[in-house]
């Protein structure tokens, strides 16, 4: 053997060569192969079946060309693996015919185009791409990936540096594990990591990746990088503000609830609302919100909520009555508004509710106190006026008479002056008694009772019997049998007595005198009217002073100017009012308005 054939050397050499090689004869019998050549590979192409696949055709064409001594190739595309192989054929010996087949893993031009496209879109989305070819050992970073890592133009990444960007510790260990796992099991990875850029900046990234296999062997690693620093920080901020909202929602003293737009069912509510209604969240959820309103308001509220959703109402705001689980009606300040989803469709209704029952009660109490204080103040002013005027008129008379007496010698005259002094003294005593009556008009709510009016009229008539007989005066009691009035018994007696005796006192002697009492209930008030056919009062002249203190309108010896003042004071203190209609020569009607019953429901408070 003079010379060893080239083919013979090759047959030997490829056994040790890196790469995927095989030498076959014309009949596709394997003569020699490299270590990486998959023994079963050829059968994929050469198995003769009825209908040959495209690939088998390609193989056959290329192989036949090679037999003719022409170098040829075909490309096998395995899209499901995203891998392409180029099979090169060349004849290394014509006789016996030996063909060298080489399998090359392609860095695919198609994919580069894809990558370019991706780069464009990824630039917008700031998604970087990377690929590691474990066959060539080459690592590829897209522009965005480089930007995220803040590496200089001339930076050449490798597998170690790639990992070393991950922040030391948990992050680096986690990515190493994920990649390791991916290489071993094929499981893709997807996680958020912190990396330290080339410039030393801490950046949050979302890293995804996977390993690709060829014949059970990892041939590529590829993945994406996305800078999520902003998103992460935004998320942290969002979480924080969500937490703050949650805390506010949960712990606010104002009742918060979220209700659905269809049917207004309660979705969520906070503690304050649960306490207000007196039920736990579990019992409240899915209840219809409008059912919490007092029955007479529920329907109106339902309609208002419909309007709110239709956008006919921008918000619901106001004070309304809610009913808690014990049936107690609460006065609540309610504010409701709609939350819209991104498509501007009503999503939920958020409602804020505050129980202001106590507040309202307090404010009503204050109003009442102001009213009472104002009344008392008026009485005090009147009182001061009487002290100033009426007491002084008597004391000045006394002073004057005493002055006379000092000088007076005439015995008869002295007698007269002493007599007057006595009168003045009596009048002073009388006035002091009146003033005492005026200031003692004061009550507590608890003194009031529900009284049967008809009985009181009867009793008053009885106590005036003597006067009535003398004056031939008739009282007609037309008060309904069971009609009640909420009043202080002593005051009601005093008021009736005073009005009746006024009617008798100022009766018209030319007529057959009478008075009639009628009463009815109007809007929670008992309205009593006392009419007579007496002298009447000139309303034009005295109308504004009729209930004034020490005002008298008739030349009558018994007129003290105190009665109607006292009557009005007593009625006002009981929370009522008195009005008068009169015509000289025809008669007078007093109309008294008092509460029918204890409307506050809190007698004794």
């Amino acid at each position, binding site marked *: 053997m003079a010379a060893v054939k080239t083919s013979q050397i090759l047959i030997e050499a490829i056994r040790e060569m890196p790469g995927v090689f095989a030498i076959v004869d014309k009949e596709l019998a394997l003569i020699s192969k490299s270590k990486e050549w998959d023994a079963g590979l050829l059968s994929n192409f050469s198995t003769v079946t009825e209908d040959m696949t495209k690939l088998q055709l390609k193989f056959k064409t290329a192989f036949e060309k090679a037999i003719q001594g022409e170098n040829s190739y075909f490309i096998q595309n395995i899209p499901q693996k995203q891998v392409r192989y180029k099979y090169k054929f060349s004849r290394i010996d014509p006789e016996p015919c030996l063909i060298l087949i080489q399998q090359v893993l392609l860095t695919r031009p198609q994919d580069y185009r894809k990558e370019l496209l991706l780069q464009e879109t990824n630039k917008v989305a700031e998604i970087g791409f990377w690929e590691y070819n474990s066959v060539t050992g080459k690592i590829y970073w897209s522009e965005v990936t480089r930007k995220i890592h803040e590496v200089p133009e001339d930076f050449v990444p490798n597998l170690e540096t790639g990992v070393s960007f991950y922040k030391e510790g948990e992050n680096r260990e986690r990515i190493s594990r994920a990649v390791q796992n991916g290489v071993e099991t094929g499981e893709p990875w997807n996680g958020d990591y912190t990396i330290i850029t080339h410039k030393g900046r801490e950046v949050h990234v979302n890293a995804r990746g996977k390993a690709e296999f060829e014949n059970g062997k990892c041939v590529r690693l590829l993945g994406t990088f996305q800078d999520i620093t902003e998103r992460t920080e935004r998320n942290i901020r969002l979480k924080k503000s969500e937490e703050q909202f949650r805390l506010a929602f949960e712990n606010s003293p104002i009742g918060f609830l979220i209700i659905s737009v269809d049917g207004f069912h309660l979705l969520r509510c906070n503690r304050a609302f649960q306490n207000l209604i007196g039920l736990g969240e579990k019992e409240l959820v899915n209840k219809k919100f409008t059912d919490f309103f007092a029955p007479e308001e529920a329907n109106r509220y339902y309609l208002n909520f419909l309007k709110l959703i239709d956008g006919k109402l921008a918000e619901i705001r106001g004070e309304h009555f809610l009913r808690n689980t014990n049936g107690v009606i609460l006065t609540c300040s309610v504010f409701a508004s709609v939350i819209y989803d991104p498509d501007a469709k009503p999503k939920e209704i958020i409602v804020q509710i505050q129980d202001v029952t106590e507040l309202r009660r307090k404010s009503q109490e204050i109003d009442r106190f102001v009213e009472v204080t104002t009344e008392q103040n008026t009485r005090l002013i009147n009182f001061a006026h009487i002290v100033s*005027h009426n007491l002084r008129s008597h004391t000045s008379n006394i002073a004057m008479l005493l002055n006379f007496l000092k000088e007076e010698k005439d015995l008869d005259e002295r007698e007269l002056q002493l007599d007057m002094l006595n009168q003045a003294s009596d009048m002073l005593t009388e006035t002091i008694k009146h003033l005492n009556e005026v200031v003692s008009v004061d009550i507590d709510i608890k003194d009031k009772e529900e009284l049967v009016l008809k009985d009181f009229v009867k009793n008053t008539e009885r106590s005036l019997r003597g006067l009535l007989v003398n004056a031939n005066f008739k009282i007609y009691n037309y008060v309904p049998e069971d009609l009640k009035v909420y009043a202080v018994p002593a005051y009601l007696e005093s008021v009736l007595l005073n009005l009746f005796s006024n009617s008798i006192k100022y009766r018209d002697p030319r007529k057959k005198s009478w008075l009639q009492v009628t009463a009815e209930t109007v809007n929670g008030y008992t309205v009593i009217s006392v009419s007579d056919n007496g002298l009447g009062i000139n309303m034009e002249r005295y109308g504004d002073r009729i209930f004034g203190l020490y005002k008298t309108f008739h030349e009558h010896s018994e007129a003290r100017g105190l009665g109607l003042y006292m009557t009005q004071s007593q009625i006002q203190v009981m929370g009522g009012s008195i009005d008068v209609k009169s015509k000289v020569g025809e008669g007078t009607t007093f109309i008294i308005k008092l509460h029918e019953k204890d409307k506050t429901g809190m007698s004794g408070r």
Partner: protein
Amino acid sequence: MKKIKLACLVDDDPIVVFGLKKMMKLVKFCENFLVYSNGQEALNALTAIFKTGDEIPDLILLDLNMPVMDGWEFLEAFTKYDPPKKITIYILTSSIDPRDQERALQFSSVSNYVVKPVTLEQLEAIRDTFSDED
């Protein structure tokens, strides 16, 4: 020197009327006087006097707090009349309320406001200011 010929006293309190009459005599306040127990009486009498041409009082001493028609009403009503001769009005009252005094002096016909009890000196002073006029 001009003396008060006729004075008019309007007061419902008989003790005041008694006292004033007595003191008026003492200081020779006037030659004659008329007494009315409230504003209405006084107004009725005075308007009658204006009509009949009887002697018109030079001076009215007017109490404020009276039944039927009080001093205020009398003043309101009286200012509507145009008496044939000037009548001076003095308010005599027990009220020391400054608001009453202020209100009284707003009437142009009111010359002064005297708080009771009226003393002889005060009556003399009124008499004298009266005589000093013209």
